[in-house]
């Protein structure tokens, strides 16, 4: 019990919260980037442009099937070979955006496919162009279907930022390791706090998704 009280001193908690802040900022930047790029890639893959769409599809499939950790190593240790040396924050965001946008592209594509094809036909029959129909009729409906999958992808993105401790990103996991590295009696309290902090962030997000689903459904 005394260990816990000592471990949760304000200095330690403050340090963990600094880490949590980095985790949240990196996650938000990655979510924003991968949402935009992923949607574009997903639409490209859906609309079937000659040569481009199959090529995009192949690249998506390759990146999706690699471990994120490998991509993080690649951006942090591999890119300097090409003369580009990102900081650990930028390397993480870059790796996250590359990896997650392929996951989101897949979600967007299957969301669009799930919309009744009659919707597109009806829109076209009413005089809308293909792009107009896609933008005004299909995508808003697909959006509704995509929300649960998108949010669970974002949750796993937040959890996966912890992998970037390996390239010394000062995130929550990294800061907790520093704290328990000083004093072995802090190990158990730190793991408990780590679990609680990650859980609160991720669970809150999943609750938001559930209420969104209810409101839109």
């Amino acid at each position: 019990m005394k260990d816990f009280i000592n471990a949760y001193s304000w200095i330690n908690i403050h340090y963990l919260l600094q880490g949590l802040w980095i985790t949240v900022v990196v996650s938000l930047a990655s979510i924003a980037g991968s949402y935009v790029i992923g949607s574009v890639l997903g639409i490209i893959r859906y609309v079937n442009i000659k040569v481009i769409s199959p090529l995009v599809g192949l690249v998506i499939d390759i990146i999706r099937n690699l471990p994120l950790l490998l991509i993080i190593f690649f951006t942090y240790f591999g890119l300097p070979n090409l003369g580009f040396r990102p900081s650990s924050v930028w390397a993480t965001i870059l790796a996250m955006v590359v990896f997650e946008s392929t996951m989101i592209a897949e979600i967007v594509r299957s969301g669009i496919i799930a919309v009744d094809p009659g919707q597109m036909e009806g829109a076209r029959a009413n005089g809308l162009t293909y792009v107009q129909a896609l933008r005004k009729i299909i995508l808003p409906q697909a959006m509704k279907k995509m929300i649960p999958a998108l949010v669970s992808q974002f949750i796993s993105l937040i959890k996966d930022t912890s992998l970037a401790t390996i390239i010394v990103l000062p995130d929550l996991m990294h800061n907790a390791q520093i704290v328990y590295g000083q004093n072995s009696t802090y190990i158990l309290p730190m793991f408990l706090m780590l679990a609680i902090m990650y859980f609160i962030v991720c669970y809150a997000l999943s609750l938001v998704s559930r209420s969104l689903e209810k409101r839109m459904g």
Partner: protein
Amino acid sequence: MIAIFHNYGGLLLQGFGQTLLCSVIALFFSLIIGSMFAIFETTPIKFLRVIARIYIEVFRNIPLLVITMFFFVVIPMFVAKISGFAAGTIGLTIYTSAFIAETVRAGIQSVDPGQMEGARANGLSFWQAMRYIVLPQAFRYVIPPLGNQFINLVKNSSVLAFVAGFDLMYQGNVIASDSLSTMSTYVCIGILYLIITLPLSYWMRYLEKKLA
């Protein structure tokens, strides 16, 4: 790249084997644990449902790395000394089982409830009906999503690199720092991961289309 395969073939092969071994062990146990919690969630007994809900929500919302490091750092302090490979595999099993539980539960609930009622009306107990009537039908629906979970599992097994699990990712770092050609080493490692995950992913997509 060819030089990497040529000079470090043994290490790469060992890493590949460890990754595959760890994934298969974790898959086996997480299937058992996951199905167990999925059944708990669909029982009429409230206590079991609550237990299952808590297990699934907790382990789905905590990073795999935290769970793995817990087994690598905390368990040796209080319980028994375990290797990095064991810690990683246990962490993976627990993390994946929460996702598999969700998948299997969705499968069980997609089976027409009339099947359960009919089985019960014919005199089978809840467990018998589950075992012989509902689960076999549910598993047909859940094969594609389970396959995707296995792909995730193979990719996630790269956390073994954090705990000296001698998997593909770990050997990759060893080779990268030894050969100093990081770029081509990571490309080689990527190719080896793709050998496992890419065919599986296309196979699952084919199955999804066939079942739909």
